[in-house]
């Protein structure tokens, strides 16, 4: 039994069926009848894609694999009797249970957060609600189409893109010194911020939301610096937290996420957790919640293997990550924590600058590569890192990593001085 049909739940279901042709596999979701790509919600909100386009597998695929799909919320998890109860009153017994309930938006805990016109972009309902609201107000005058986006991370910039698509004036509030400081260096963020400014976005750094004003609908927000920003739409993208409500209610061990051991087992040996809802252990014994598509997919697979009795350890830690900032594609391979002796290389593609940040050991061995604005072959970068190449070797062979379309002019980036804050 799998609770949740996001990428972790589905990866687990498919892996379970692959390894066990005869077990009964059921997957229940409260969000949508069919698995959809959450990473594409912004395209749904922009009207570029329909809900059906976002579904990687049709209903018939799951039917073929004899994976039963259920729509409903799990009201109780009775671990003693090994059964779950849904909103419609049905009970389902399980031998092994996987909780893949994902994440929910972090609450900003400010009054007014539930006014009309305040949106997050995490669930399918969020995306459809945002699109509907925007379309209701589509013929408003430009002075009325002002939006504020709070949160300088991946979902924040996606919401900025959605709002610009509908010709809103956007003010982007970043809590810190720059956009996405967790993953991008000052130089990388600057590239993105300059692009945002060129598109007419007002970027306010070191600014947080203090108050939300409005009656029924949001009218205005105030920052901690005291300035007021009128807005008819407020987008909150301050992060997500694990959806642990069900686990908590049923007495499982919870911290920031559902606590699991390296085999993705919870405090109850018959119950597993994978994806954004799980809190995993890293090599350095630190516990983290990884809310990334790629790691959730791997976790689903590992959880499935453990559910069938194969003892598999999940190796926490990001190997790949990716995103897109308007026209600039972002990829990272390996370690990407920003440090002072990272080397930045800058190049130009079709007249637009791109940046490659290489993180190395003191002996110049590459630990990780972060790329903004150019397509590189991530598998080759991964091999390079595993083969312990130096950053000089990497840059000298830059064209080998080229993944841009054919006929792209080959360009080796110019060497840039090591970044020092």
């Amino acid at each position, binding site marked *: 039994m799998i609770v949740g049909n996001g990428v972790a739940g589905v990866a687990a279901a498919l892996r379970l069926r692959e390894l066990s042709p005869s077990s009964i596999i059921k997957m229940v979701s409260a969000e949508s009848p069919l698995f959809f790509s959450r990473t594409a919600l912004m395209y749904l909100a922009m009207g570029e*894609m329909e809900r059906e386009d976002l579904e990687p597998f049709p209903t018939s695929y799951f039917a073929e694999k004899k994976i039963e799909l259920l729509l409903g919320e799990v009201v109780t998890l009775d671990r003693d009797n090994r059964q779950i109860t849904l909103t419609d009153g049905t009970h389902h017994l399980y031998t092994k249970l996987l909780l893949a309930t994902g994440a929910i938006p972090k609450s900003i805990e400010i009054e007014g957060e539930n006014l009309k016109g305040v949106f997050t972009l995490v669930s399918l309902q969020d995306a459809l609600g945002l699109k509907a609201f925007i379309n209701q107000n589509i013929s408003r005058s430009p002075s009325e189409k002002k939006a504020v986006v709070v949160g300088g991370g991946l979902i924040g910039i996606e919401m900025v893109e959605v709002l610009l698509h509908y010709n809103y004036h956007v003010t982007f509030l970043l809590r810190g010194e720059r956009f996405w400081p967790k993953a991008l260096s000052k130089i990388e963020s600057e590239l993105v911020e300059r692009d945002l400014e060129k598109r007419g976005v007002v970027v306010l750094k070191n600014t947080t939301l203090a108050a939300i004003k409005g009656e029924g609908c949001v009218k205005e927000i105030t920052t901690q610096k005291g300035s007021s920003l009128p807005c008819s739409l407020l987008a909150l993208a301050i992060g997500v937290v694990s959806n642990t409500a069900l686990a908590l209610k049923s007495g499982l061990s919870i911290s920031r996420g559902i606590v699991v051991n390296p085999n993705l087992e919870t405090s109850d040996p018959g119950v597993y957790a994978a994806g954004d809802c799980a809190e995993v252990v890293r090599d350095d014994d630190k516990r983290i919640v990884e809310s990334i598509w*790629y790691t959730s997919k791997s976790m689903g697979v590992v959880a499935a293997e453990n559910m069938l009795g194969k003892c598999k350890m999940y190796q926490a830690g990001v190997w790949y990550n990716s995103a897109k900032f308007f026209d600039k*594609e972002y*990829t990272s391979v390996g370690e990407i924590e920003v440090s002072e002796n990272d080397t930045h290389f800058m190049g130009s593609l079709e007249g*637009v600058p791109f940046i490659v940040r290489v993180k190395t050991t003191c002996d110049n061995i590459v630990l990780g590569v972060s790329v903004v604005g150019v*397509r590189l072959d991530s*598998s080759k970068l991964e091999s390079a890192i595993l083969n312990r190449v130096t950053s000089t070797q990497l840059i000298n062979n830059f064209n080998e990593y080229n993944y841009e*379309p*054919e006929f792209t*002019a080959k360009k080796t980036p110019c060497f840039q001085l090591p970044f020092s804050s």
Partner: protein
Amino acid sequence: MNQSLLPKRLPVFNYLLAVSFTLFYYLLYFTDLFTPLAKSTGLKNKWVLYGVIYTLTMLIFGVKVFLKRKKDPYQRLRTLSVVFFQLVFAFLLPILLPLLKQPEFYFSYLWPLKIEYFYPDVMVGKPFFYIIYSLAGSLILFPLLAFFIGKRFYCSWICGCGGLAETMGDTFRSLSDKSKMSWKIERVTIYSVLVFTILTTVLIVTPWAIKELFHYELNLLTQIAMKVRHFYWFFISAFLAGVLGVGLYPLFGTRVWCRFFCPMAALLGLIQKKGKFQIVVKKGMCISCGKCSKECEMGIDVRYYAQKDQSFTRASCVGCGICAYVCPRGVLRLQSNLKLESIC
């Protein structure tokens, strides 16, 4: 992905457009309605008029598409190429050649697409160069190119049918049906047409060859051949390629002919499957968003391969490169896996 075969929730405008296109082609092929118009503008016949309209349409929409995807060098070159081949080889040259005492010849169309270029009565009167070009082109050059760089060299860089699809048809490209059922149907229909094309060719060539070699006239066979030949023209060239091919653009996307019926596509597609062209997938990077599958005009479920880290070659892939262009994470890359690294 939508699993039904019928167009879903399309605006009424699309249906109106489909009717208009279909009507236009019906009138063009099966009536003389356009002849007076052609003559009054000083053009030789309705086919030249058609050529003018077709080429002009491709030029205008070619500019639009070029600007739309101008940041991608592959898209720029491909758009330029397809417009160039239409303008020069499918329009201007065939008009100029007779003025230079040469036969009216379309160098960008060969057998099996232009079945006439293997008909003895069409080719034998022409200078030797044209006969060699037709035979060597169809049997040696095109297959070799399809093997080494994929059938895309023709289907999305040269062919005029493809050219219209990529330019005027760009708006309709995501309407192609992605269902497994469509894939099953297209494999039956396209190879059936190829077989029919080969049989028709053999049927036309055989009595001629017997007559040339043995001076024996197979009257019955010749009669049957004539009927089949006419049926081929009517059903394949006029109805499927023209009327349905373009008529269905606004309902089923731009490549209905290419995907379900074109014998050149069938032949080169088979060669491509064994060849060096493939779409490479960056392992572990696909986020299953579905943009690739949505934009694929051939109805290939590209996402299916991308999300399971599988580089692939499909016989129907015309190498337009749009899947790679729209991918928000740069997961896909069109490649000809030749040893010479210096070639792109």
